[in-house]
């Protein structure tokens, strides 16, 4: 009877934390719409959002609908994409420190976007889907390089993984710098600003591409979640339990590179979201990926919305790049995780 009582429920309690996270996301969204150079009361926000027939004359409606809402949606989708990418890389490498920034995958995506810029495919007249494709290619190239360099006898030891991530990141960052050195001043400004990570209102097509890619990512991760759990036992044991390990790894790998590429191509390099959010979600919900996939998506969206809110307000009227906020949160957490015994052991 004791055993029955202590046997943890896996299925029953899944809904409640997810509902809490949905609540957190809605609160984050509401705050993003309220706070800014012109503070807007919650009731006014609601009215601006749901009042039928957009009143073009009303400045509050314009601010909420045309400025703050698109920006909040962009922040939410970018946050969810980067957080899911981190979760995917962590599951594949069996390492809680893996993240698009740490692995240099973000730099690879930046490189892809820079190439697209040089080719004249980016910018206001470019097709966002094409830019995303370039970013995806760059991200995939970087990710494949990192894993190829880091692999020792079919394992991914933590030290070689981190080192090869640093090397790959530096290499692609240098490539980007080399290319920007040749760019004309006007283009350069755009690239540099974008590289710092920004959530300037994006066009409808950009948001649509990002939404589509994010949806693909969520579907892939949700479908593979149970199998990604079994990877935690090690690849050989996962095979022996009936998991087609290579297929699972490949699809999660491609999905993680894809969402990274989409996030980076719309918002530039925003670091450490993929490290912070899965870690927080694991503390809340445990390591089961079937719960983590929706949770990490929601929490990532809420996190980046709030980080953007902070970036907009701490030095108002000046605006910080949101990447500064996420790095200030992420870098100390990375150090803590690296120093903790468990973080190191987990990579064995």
């Amino acid at each position, binding site marked *: 009877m*004791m055993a029955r009582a*202590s*046997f*943890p429920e896996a299925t029953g309690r899944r809904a409640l934390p997810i509902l809490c996270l949905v609540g957190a996301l809605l609160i984050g969204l509401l705050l993003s719409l309220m706070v800014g150079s012109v503070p807007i009361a919650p009731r006014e926000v609601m009215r601006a959002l749901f009042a039928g027939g957009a009143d073009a004359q009303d400045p509050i409606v314009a601010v909420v609908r045309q400025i703050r809402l698109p920006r909040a949606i962009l922040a939410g989708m970018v946050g969810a994409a980067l957080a899911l990418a981190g979760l995917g890389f962590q599951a594949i490498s069996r390492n809680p420190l893996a993240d698009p920034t740490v692995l240099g995958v973000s730099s690879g995506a930046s490189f892809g976007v820079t190439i697209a810029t040089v080719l004249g495919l980016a910018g206001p007249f470019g097709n966002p889907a094409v830019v995303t494709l370039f970013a995806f290619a760059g991200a995939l190239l970087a990710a494949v390089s990192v894993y190829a360099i880091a692999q020792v006898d079919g394992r991914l030891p933590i030290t070689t993984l981190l080192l090869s991530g640093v090397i790959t990141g530096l290499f692609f960052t240098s490539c980007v710098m080399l290319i920007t050195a040749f760019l004309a001043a006007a283009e350069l400004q755009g690239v540099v600003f974008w590289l710092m990570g920004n959530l300037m209102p994006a066009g409808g097509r950009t948001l649509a591409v990002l939404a589509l890619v994010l949806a693909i990512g969520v579907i892939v991760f949700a479908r593979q979640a*149970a199998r990604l759990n079994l990877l935690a036992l090690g690849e050989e044991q996962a*095979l*022996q*339990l009936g998991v087609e390990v290579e297929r699972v790894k490949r699809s999660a790998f491609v999905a993680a590179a894809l969402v990274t590429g989409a996030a980076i191509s719309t918002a530039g390099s925003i670091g450490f979201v993929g490290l912070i959010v899965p870690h927080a979600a694991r503390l809340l919900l*445990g390591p089961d990926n079937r719960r983590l996939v929706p949770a990490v998506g929601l929490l990532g969206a809420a996190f980046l919305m709030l980080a953007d809110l902070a970036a907009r307000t701490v030095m108002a009227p000046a605006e910080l790049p949101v990447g500064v906020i996420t790095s200030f949160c992420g870098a100390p957490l990375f150090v803590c995780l690296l120093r903790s015994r468990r973080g190191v052991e987990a990579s064995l």
Partner: protein
Amino acid sequence: MNTLQVEGVSFRYRTGRGVEDVTFRASPGELLGVVGPNSAGKSTLLRLLSKVLLPQQGRILIEGRDVAALSRMALARRVAVVPQEFHVAFPFRVAEVVLMGRYPHAAGGAWGATNDDARDRTMAQAALKATGTAHLASRRVDELSGGERQLVSLARALAQEAPILLLDEPTAHLDLRHQGIVLSILLAHHREGRGTTILVSHDLNLAAEHCDRLLLLAGGRVRAVGRPEEVITPEHLEPAYGCPVTVERHPASGRPRVQGILNQRDARGTASQHSPEVREAGRS
């Protein structure tokens, strides 16, 4: 019918090691020990039986079906493996880890596998109880001691409900007391079921004491198969291990007991001969 039939199986790594023309069979209810020196091919054989590797020659039949043609899920319903060491990358709870053993039974719909329905949970609980780890169910695996973790690993394999259980040195990293606990649980489980248990072990005496039959591997080849008293003899062991041995009878069980005889010349000989394995052991 034989549960397991291995017919002329060969596999060679690029380094040249592996197994060569291995043939044996195991029947239901049998406890078969696989013994041999380092790099004899024991782990390779285990990887072949669990389809981590595919034979380059020959074939392996499980319940009459070729392993190469079975899906991994179908194979995992027939063969469960307890690895030498058991590390879980993230802080999963014991119950969650044991439920992972139910994955091969999962109804894998489009949205992935559900391995925690009522029957899965019953089986996982039974496995925890059988290994005396029910009280650990909600503990984090990464916080357990080595002995407890090995019991959880065994529970995970038992939850798999497979007729063939493969164990790779399940007691190698345990102290004497936990060796005894793991072994007695294993033997109790084996006696209860009609399953086939294959125990890979370094420990000749342990294998001779408990196994129905022994398979002696050396240099990737089968050197002897048979009852312990047929296999544990100086004629078989001395060429396999490259050192002289003495064999005597266990006073209580009457099973053979073996001891290596060391002299200066052989100590030098084996050290140089086995240096790659020494390195390998140091790494793992």
